């Protein structure tokens, strides 16, 4: 194993002057026959789990198995937003922990994840909705999370280019602003965690598909893969979108349906929108990337699918939201749109922790919120794998919570997978 160099301004200057080649950021090891922990899924969550296992719990005999290449799944397909404006008990603390980890992540990983805390404004389009946001803001502040309630003149001063006209279909009454929310460069999250975990001895094995699980009665003790059999003390399923597919291989059925969520980027324009903005009349969220493209997304397509190809009517709906909110966007052209497969759960909250099978752990069902949760999900799953118990932040997210009547309905929409 070659020693991997530390990234710094000095290293950059040295390479600029002397032109030495950059080393690869992580090794390409062949799978060993056995590990203490095998993590199925090399997305953000799987890599973060591996990193915190090695860095916080001293467990370094860990393999991360990825079917494709790193960053080819949802960690490279999201709209890169991070925030912690949640109000259900458990969720508030969990997502705030995540945001705190984001704040120190570039330093911790020695990899610039380009966190930009430009703030997020959620809009209200009626007095009732503004009351709901005020309540959410109070919940946040009671938990030590700063936020500010804006009335209509505040919003107009802050974002003068929204539609404030008399004929506006959804007039703006105000909004809730979280100044510490923002965006992160999503690819860098996968690469940064991979590189940092690799430096601590974790094996990251790409192009390695799990095809089955090794069972010993009610225990799981490894996986069958396209690159051979790998024994594991503990195994984690962390495969957003394909959770049901993997769980079926081990005989579990989950309260999850796989749906498509599309995201969109326009042609780049000059700096225009300097915060993350969420529409309140529909599910629509938008920010401007550092390259200038407007990045936005909306609801899921509405029926289950694994195709990673979105349907056109949703493109139209989302574009209508964009123009209803920001009329100045009407002449922008879309550069790209794409779809990610996401696990939808009945209450919009994920499942994390142990499963009915011994030594098998599960992290999935992230609905719209997987990306922002990446550091805390890794943190809490590392805790679960190291101690065989759920971290206090995730005790309300057990796999059997619907059987016990304990759904965590963050959005107040009822327990309905494709309404979340």
């Amino acid at each position, binding site marked *: 194993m070659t020693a991997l160099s530390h990234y710094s301004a000095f290293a950059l200057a040295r390479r600029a002057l002397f032109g030495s080649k950059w080393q690869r950021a992580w090794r390409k090891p062949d799978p060993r026959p056995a590990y203490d922990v095998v993590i199925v899924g090399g997305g953000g969550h799987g890599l973060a789990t591996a990193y915190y296992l090695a860095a916080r719990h001293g467990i370094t005999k860990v393999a991360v198995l990825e079917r494709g290449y790193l960053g080819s799944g949802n960690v490279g397909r999201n709209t890169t937003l991070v925030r912690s404006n949640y109000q259900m008990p458990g969720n508030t603390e969990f997502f705030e922990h995540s945001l705190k980890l984001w704040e120190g992540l570039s330093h911790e990983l020695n990899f610039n994840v380009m966190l930009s805390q430009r703030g997020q404004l959620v809009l209200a389009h009626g007095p009732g909705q503004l009351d709901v946001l005020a309540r959410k803001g109070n919940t946040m502040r009671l938990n030590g999370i700063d936020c500010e309630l804006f009335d209509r003149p505040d919003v107009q001063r802050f974002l003068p280019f929204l539609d404030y006209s008399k004929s506006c279909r959804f007039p703006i009454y105000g909004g809730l602003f979280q100044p510490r929310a923002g965006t992160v460069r999503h690819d860098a999250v996968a690469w940064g965690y991979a590189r940092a975990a690799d430096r601590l001895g974790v094996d990251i094995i790409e192009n390695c598909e799990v095809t089955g699980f090794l069972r010993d009665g009610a225990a799981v003790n490894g996986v069958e893969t396209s690159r051979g059999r790998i024994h594991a003390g503990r195994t984690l399923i962390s495969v957003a979108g394909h959770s049901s*597919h993997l769980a079926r291989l081990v005989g579990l059925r989950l309260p999850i349906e796989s749906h498509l969520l599309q995201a969109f980027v326009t042609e780049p324009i000059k700096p225009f929108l300097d915060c993350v903005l969420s529409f309140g009349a529909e599910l629509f969220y938008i920010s401007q990337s550092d390259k200038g493209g407007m990045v936005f997304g909306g609801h899921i397509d509405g029926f289950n*699918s694994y195709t990673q190809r979105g349907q056109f009517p949703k493109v139209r709906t989302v574009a209508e939201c964009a123009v209803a909110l920001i009329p100045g966007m009407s002449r922008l052209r879309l550069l790209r749109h794409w779809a990610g497969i996401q696990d939808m759960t009945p209450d919009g909250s994920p499942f994390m922790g142990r499963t009915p099978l011994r030594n098998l752990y599960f992290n999935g069902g992230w609905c719209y919120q997987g990306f922002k949760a990446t550091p805390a999900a890794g943190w809490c799953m590392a805790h679960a794998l190291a101690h065989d118990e759920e971290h206090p932040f995730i005790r309300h997210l057990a796999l059997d919570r619907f059987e016990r009547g304990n759904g965590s309905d963050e959005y107040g929409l009822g*327990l309905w997978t494709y309404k979340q």
Partner: protein
Amino acid sequence: MLRIPCPHCGLRDYTEFRYAGDATKPRPAHGTGEQRAWYEYVFVFDNPKGPHLEYWQHVEGCRQWLVLERDTSTNTVGQSWLARQGAKP
């Protein structure tokens, strides 16, 4: 655009329909007090990557409920029939 064959109206855009989930799950008998059966029926999904039988309602057409065969890995649509004919026609 996904297009769905309606037994009454022919091939129509999916936006005219409402998706209503897995059509293969048997509903527990009325009055069944067994929690496990209701939990499975309401919350648990096979969610296969491949052939799937599912309910759709043609809300902007004949308003009939139908069962559709669709492959969730390609969105290829197969046969459809009226839901009152059962999970298999």
